[in-house]
Every structure is written in structure tokens, then in C-alpha cells.
């Protein structure tokens, strides 16, 4: 797409692109949602993990595309978020630059919010200044004369209260009017901040002018040397704008920039200090003319709440309690919901079975497709619940407090307080936990958190532990009967991942994801009532993102593993037996019980032989030499390979291999007894306490969960990290299982 010329585009077909920019905690997302309705698309900006949200709507018959830029404090790029903001505003992001910018400020904190606004005003694009959270400002006695502010800055100023949906119509009208004005205006660059020179003054202004002249003599077109671009190239050493301009203008411009920076340093106006000092001085003077505070700042409601919620002792305990509540709700509530989903799938697959004769298509539908769909939607309840809590905690302002309270604790892992909730959620399930890392603003912290999250003992590991402990760990008590041994082993297995995660995080921080820790500067916004609309939007968006982006890959993998477990092999006898059993069952289940049992036993044997002969089975046998040092035979090897889509699958697979039918669970006595009776060819039992321990350690540390890997792929926007996760966790799991078995064998 190319930039259309403003004079020839017809208003009816052209879609006006409007960028929303603002500090974090200005209610920008609320405003974005209120303006764009439900038609929001989310995605990633190319090459970075910054989330892109675009909403489409129509105002006054005009097509509008709203772009929600990440919350940012400045246009001087220090993070990928800010880089994206600058690239979108200047149109260096493969897309044309926006037709209009709405700059959103928190009306109660203009002193700070106008810093970004003064930078945005310098962009060569019409701007509307939106003073949001106006109701809260009025309530706390802050009055802003919007007309004077508009006159002083030379832009339209609109006051809104997005949560109450006040001022939205005025904002829309202002946008439509500004767009119309920009289109009819003969002037190609419709409006740039007329008073820009008043903000940056003295030697800085002189240098900017000098650089502009140089670019013009170098033959750079006017659009590419706007005062904004020149200013940013001077003030952000090694920033993206400097790169852009030096690419176009060559080394002469680079040396001119260095010369200008030297001149400024000599004049006592060092970069970056000079920009902040001059802008804040301007804002202070401006606000003294347009803003009044009726009362001296007194103790606000937020202060009073904070004196409890961020108290060193009570605050910490409350924080732990809140986060434990979130975790346990997900853990306990998602269980019945997931069971409901499984029940639904069982029903779906029995509907298919009832209406079709046994055959490859039925097998694909019931064991491949329905199971694949199931493995996707079984995560949805947990994802929705977690994002419901995250939405509530973020929207009311508590999330930042939790990060504040937990920062020191997470510092032990080389992470910041923001990693606490994602990691804790991963104890229920790593999939929502990894998605929750979006609350972490630092890229390296976020990646380390994503990489260690799958080590937390999720609920899918529990069935494996329960089966192994129930079958092989003696029901003994330690410490004179006080501590049941089985509980001790269960606890040890559940904490193993966390213990291993500590060195893993520290090593990642020093190797692959090294770098100075980013400054921890966290704004603690005023508390407010969370908005149901915003919270539900967030739940909806994360659920959709999971289903669309990760779900398809999870589904595909499930079907592939089904195929690998079914082919090659002749299924004729299997289908025959199934058909016979079903017809006997339909006839009269009770009188045919003996016959059904006999046929079922043969069917289970068939299933077992087919699995052994399949690609999956052959792969399991092929890896026996590798898993033998762990104390495993090929049957356990098949179980491990088959459980790649999800850890808990290992139990059903073992059930099949041991000819018990695929529908056994961890409490099944038949499976326990069969495992105990399994022997090597020489007659020695396969399973012993060290083997059971080695299997548990393996499953505690391995990455046998395709959903987790696919979510890592989606959240990191690259295949590199899921592959890395799989490799490092499998190596850890192998070494852990090897040591467990070899050491355990000595006793």
C-alpha cells in the first residue's frame, strides 16, 4: 500500500488511520475499546513481540481504523514498545503514517503526561489532545481550562471520561472535523505544532536548525527531514530515527550529529538531560496558566488504601493471599470445568461412534479430531479465568502494587516483581501462565519467565505422580508416623521444577538473555473501580488469541500424533472386533457379558499390537538404548513419545500397551497391578522404586506439552524459543532421570 495523496482521495472509500498514544495508566485501552467497539484485531508488529491492536469502525459515514499504540512515557525509544510507537507515528513501519494522532493524557497528572504530548505535537501530523479521566480530575479539585490549553498548544483539546463513556461523541466529532480540514487544506503538511520552537530553545534549537539545513543541502526531500525527525535524530543517540536519517543522508550527517552533540555538551546542555529539563520547564509554565488546584493535595483515597495494601507487613500478607486466591481458584475451578469439557467431548465422540461403523474415518474423527479439539479447548477455562483476574487486578490498579511488593522476592531469580503472577499461575497450567507474561514490560525478564514457566509443576503432571506413587512408593510413614512417605514424595516432585528453575533463570540471565537489568520504574496508578467491559474484552481477546494462533497448531500436532500411533498396520480385525462388541452391547449387554469380555480382551491385545507396530511404537523401540540408562524399557519409551501432545496421555498410552484398553486412569488398580507385574525379557520386574522415581523426575522436568510449546511460539513470535525450551527441558529431564535411577539403584 502506498501513501495516497490527500487531495485526490475520496472521503467515502478512504479509511482514515488514527493512532492512539499515551502514557500507561491514562485509560487509553478503555478509550480504545469504547471508540472501536468489538471489532478489534490483535497481532504482533513484524519482528518484535509488541502487541498490535487495531479496531475498525465508522464515524459520520467515514471508515476509521484505530491503532492502539503501546503505552509509552516518551518518544525517545528505549524499549521495543517505544520503538514501535515512533515507527508507526513516522510511517517507517511498512505502513503509511497515520492521518491523525489522538494523544491521551491523564487529566489528573498533566504535569507528567504533557511530556509525551509535547513530543507528539512535534510529529508532522494533526493531533487531538484528549484529557481522559476528567471525572477523577474534577473530583480531586483539578481544573483545566481546555480552551486556553488548546490556544496555547495550537491543537484541539477534548475532555473525556472513557469509563463513563462521557465526551466520546465530542472526541469523535473533533476527529471527523480535523480529518475533513486536513483533506481540504491546500497545505500538504496540514498542521504542525506552531510553538515547537518555544519548548526546545537555546543551543538545541540552533543545532536542530543547522541539521535541517544540512539535510536540505544534501537533497533530502522535505517529508524525510521534518523538524520532528531531525529533533529525534539529534536527541536519541543510536535511535531508530538516527539510523533512518544517516542511511539516507550518509556519513556526513552522522558526523554533523556528533558535532552537534559535542557543541551541546560544551554549552552545558547535555543530551539527554536538556530535552527533559526544557520540556518540563515549558509544561510547568504552561500549567501555571491553564490549570488550577482548588485544594492543597490532601490525603487521597488511594493514599489511604495504599497505607494498608502496600504496608510492609500487612500489604505483603494481603498480596500473598490475593495471589494465592487467584492461583487456587484457577487450580480448583478449572478442574470441574475441564471435566465438563471432557464429558462434552466424550459425548461428541460417542455420537460419532453411534452413527458410523468402525473404520479409519471414525477413528480419525473420534481419536484424532475430537481429541485434538479437546486438547485445545480444555485450556480455555483456565485461560479465561486467569485473564479475568489479571483484568480485574490491572484495571483496579492492584497489579502494579503486587509487582512492587514481590519485586525483592523475584529479584532472587534475577527477575522483577511482574514475573510473580505468571510464574504462580504456571503451577496450575503453563499455558495461561505464559500468556500472562504480557504484564512484564522488560523483554529479557519476560523471556526468562516464559522459559522457566513450564518447569513449574502444573496440574497435568499430577496424574503421573499419583499413578507412580500409588503403585510403587510404599505406604510408610517417616519421623515416627508423622509424615506419610507418599505425601513427601508428592511434595518433592511438585517443588522439584521450582528448585531447578532458580539456577536455570540465573544462568539464562547470564548467557542467552544477558544484559544490564532494566531500570525498575513502576507507576502505581490511582485505585479505581474496574470496568466490566474492559475486563471482559481482555478475557475475550486472550481466549480468541489462544484458539486462533496456538489452537490450530495444537490441533494439528494432536492429529499427527494420532496418525503416528495408528499407522502403519492393518486395522481390519480391530474394526471387526469393535463392531461385534458394539452389536452385542446393543443387543443385550447383560446376557452377552461373557462374550463381550472375551472380545474386549482380544481387542485390547489388538490395540496393543497395532500401537507397537505403528510409527510411534517403532520409535519407542528405537529409543530403548537411550532410555535404558534411565531404567526404562521400550514400553515406557513409547509412552513418553506418545505423551508429547500432553503429559497425562502417558497413562492412557501405557494402558493400551499393556492391553488394558485406552481408557484407564491413574486410579486404575488394573493398571497399577499390570505395571507391578511387567518384566524385562529375563524375567526381572521393569518397575522398581528407582524406575518410578526416574519416570516422575523426567515428567517433572520435561517439555512434553505441545500446547506450552505452541504458546511459547506465539508469545515470542519465533520458533527459536519453543525449540530451545524443548531441548533444554528434555536434557534436564534426561539427566535428572538418569541420576535418579543410577543413584537410586545403589541402595
Amino acid at each position, binding site marked *: 500500500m502506498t501513501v495516497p495523496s490527500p487531495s485526490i482521495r475520496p472521503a467515502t472509500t478512504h479509511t482514515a488511520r488514527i493512532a492512539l498514544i499515551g502514557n500507561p495508566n491514562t485509560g487509553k485501552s478503555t478509550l480504545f475499546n469504547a471508540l472501536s467497539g468489538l471489532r478489534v484485531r490483535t497481532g504482533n508488529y513484524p519482528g518484535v513481540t509488541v502487541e498490535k491492536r487495531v479496531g475498525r469502525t465508522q464515524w459520520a459515514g467515514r471508515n476509521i481504523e484505530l491503532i492502539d499504540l503501546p503505552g509509552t512515557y516518551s518518544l525517545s525509544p528505549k524499549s521495543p514498545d517505544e520503538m514501535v510507537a515512533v515507527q508507526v507515528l513516522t510511517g517507517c513501519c511498512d505502513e503509511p503514517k497515520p492521518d491523525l494522532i489522538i494523544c491521551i493524557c491523564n487529566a489528573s497528572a498533566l*504535569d507528567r503526561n504533557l511530556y509525551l504530548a509535547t513530543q507528539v505535537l512535534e510529529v508532522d501530523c494533526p493531533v487531538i489532545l484528549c484529557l481522559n479521566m476528567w471525572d477523577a480530575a474534577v473530583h480531586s479539585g483539578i481544573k483545566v481550562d481546555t480552551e486556553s490549553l488548546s490556544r496555547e498548544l495550537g491543537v484541539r483539546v477534548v475532555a473525556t471520561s472513557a469509563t463513563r463513556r462521557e465526551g466520546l461523541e465530542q472526541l469523535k466529532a473533533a476527529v471527523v472535523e480535523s480529518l475533513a480540514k486536513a483533506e481540504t487544506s491546500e497545505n500538504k503538511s496540514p498542521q504542525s505544532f506552531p510553538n515547537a520552537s518555544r519548548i526546545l530553545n537555546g543551543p538545541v534549537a540552533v543545532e536542530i536548525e543547522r541539521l535541517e539545513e544540512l539535510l536540505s543541502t544534501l537533497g533530502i526531500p522535505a517529508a524525510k527531514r521534518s523538524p520532528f525527525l531531525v529533533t529525534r535524530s539529534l536527541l536519541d543517540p543510536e535511535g531508530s530515527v538516527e539510523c533512518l536519517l544517516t542511511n539516507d543522508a550518509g556519513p556526513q550527517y552522522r558526523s554533523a550529529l556528533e558535532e552537534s552533540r559535542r557543541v551541546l555538551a560544551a554549552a552545558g546542555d547535555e543530551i539527554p538531560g536538556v530535552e527533559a529539563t526544557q520540556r518540563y520547564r515549558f509544561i510547568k509554565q504552561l500549567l501555571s496558566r491553564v490549570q488550577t488546584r482548588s485544594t492543597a493535595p490532601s490525603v487521597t483515597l488511594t493514599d489511604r488504601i495504599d497505607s494498608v495494601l502496600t504496608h510492609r507487613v500487612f500489604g505483603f500478607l494481603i498480596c500473598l493471599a490475593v495471589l494465592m486466591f487467584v492461583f487456587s481458584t484457577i487450580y480448583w475451578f478449572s478442574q470441574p470445568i475441564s471435566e465438563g469439557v471432557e464429558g462434552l467431548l466424550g459425548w461428541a465422540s460417542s455420537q460419532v461412534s453411534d452413527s458410523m461403523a468402525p473404520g479409519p474415518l471414525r477413528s480419525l474423527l473420534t481419536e484424532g479430531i475430537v481429541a485434538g479439539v479437546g486438547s485445545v479447548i480444555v485450556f480455555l477455562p483456565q485461560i479465561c479465568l486467569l485473564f479475568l483476574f489479571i483484568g480485574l487486578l490491572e484495571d483496579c490498579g492492584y497489579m502494579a502494587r503486587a509487582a*512492587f511488593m514481590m519485586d525483592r522476592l523475584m529479584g532472587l531469580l534475577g527477575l522483577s516483581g511482574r514475573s510473580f503472577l505468571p510464574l504462580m499461575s504456571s503451577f496450575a497450567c503453563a499455558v495461561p501462565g505464559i500468556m500472562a507474561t504480557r504484564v512484564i514490560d522488560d523483554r529479557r525478564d519476560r523471556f526468562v519467565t516464559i522459559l522457566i514457566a513450564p518447569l513449574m509443576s502444573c496440574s497435568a503432571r499430577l496424574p503421573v505422580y499419583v499413578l507412580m506413587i500409588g503403585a510403587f512408593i510404599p505406604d510408610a510413614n517417616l519421623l515416627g508416623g508423622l509424615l506419610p512417605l507418599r505425601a513427601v514424595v508428592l511434595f518433592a516432585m511438585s517443588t522439584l521444577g521450582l528448585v531447578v528453575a532458580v539456577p536455570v533463570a540465573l544462568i539464562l540471565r547470564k548467557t542467552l538473555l544477558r544484559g544490564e537489568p532494566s531500570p525498575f520504574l513502576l507507576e502505581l496508578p490511582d485505585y479505581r473501580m474496574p470496568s466490566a467491559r474492559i475486563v471482559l474484552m481482555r478475557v475475550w481477546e486472550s481466549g480468541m488469541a489462544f484458539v486462533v494462533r496456538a489452537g490450530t497448531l495444537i490441533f494439528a500436532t494432536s492429529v499427527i500424533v494420532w496418525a503416528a500411533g495408528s499407522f502403519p498396520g492393518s486395522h481390519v480385525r480391530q474394526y471387526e472386533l469393535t463392531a461385534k462388541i458394539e452389536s452385542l452391547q446393543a443387543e443385550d449387554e447383560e446376557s452377552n457379558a461373557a462374550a463381550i469380555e472375551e472380545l474386549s480382551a482380544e481387542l485390547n491385545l489388538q490395540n496393543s499390537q497395532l500401537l507397537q507396530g505403528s510409527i510411534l511404537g517403532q520409535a519407542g523401540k528405537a529409543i530403548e538404548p537411550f532410555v535404558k540408562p534411565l531404567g526404562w524399557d521400550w514400553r515406557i519409551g513409547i509412552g513418553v513419545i506418545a505423551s508429547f501432545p500432553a503429559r497425562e496421555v502417558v497413562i492412557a498410552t501405557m494402558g493400551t500397551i499393556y492391553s488394558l484398553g485406552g481408557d484407564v486412569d491413574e486410579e486404575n488398580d488394573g493398571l497399577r497391578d499390570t505395571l507391578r507385574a511387567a518384566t524385562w525379557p529375563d524375567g526381572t520386574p521393569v518397575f522398581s522404586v528407582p524406575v518410578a522415581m526416574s519416570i516422575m523426575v523426567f515428567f517433572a522436568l520435561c517439555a512434553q506439552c505441545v500446547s506450552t510449546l505452541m504458546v511459547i511460539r506465539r508469545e515470542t513470535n519465533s520458533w527459536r524459543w519453543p525449540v530451545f525450551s524443548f531441548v533444554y527441558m528434555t536434557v534436564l529431564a534426561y539427566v535428572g532421570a538418569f541420576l535418579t535411577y543410577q543413584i537410586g539403584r545403589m541402595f
Partner: protein
Amino acid sequence: MNTLRLADLTPGASAIVTAISGASRIASRLMEMGFVPGVAVQVLRRAPFGGPIQYRIHNVSISMRIAEAACISVTNDSGWSEPAAATPASELHVAAT
């Protein structure tokens, strides 16, 4: 004049920022967030276990670790006057709404 660092102040204290030092990434981020010379800061409270400290500046609550707070030089609230460009109170434009 005594040169204090923001990290040295105890909760409840107020001070005026005099200078920012430290790595340029941190220093410029601090300044963008409003920690520029001449601005008043109030210490609100500290997180447990020597964690971050919560400050109030520009009517906004900001928390940072001790390492960042050590980059900010401050002076005690007294004896400070506004920079040369200050506007006298009489010129205050009262909003006519």
C-alpha cells in the same frame, strides 16, 4: 548545601531533585518520568525485604529500586526557589469554564 541521594531519605520525607547521574539509559528514563532538577519528591513507603521504594512526584506515584533512587541527588525541602522562568502567582490564569 548537603548532597543527599533520594535513596537515603526515609518515608515521610520530602526533597527537591538537584541532579541525575548514572547510566544514560536509567538517567534519561528517570528524567522522562519527571525527575528533573527543581521538582519536589515525597517518599511514601518501602516494600518489604529491602524492595522498591514508593515516591510521589508530579502528583503521580512511582516506585523504583534503591539502585535507581541512588542516581537521584536531592536537597532538603528548605531554601529552594523556583528556576528563573517561574511565573508569579498573580499571572495565574483562572479557567473560565
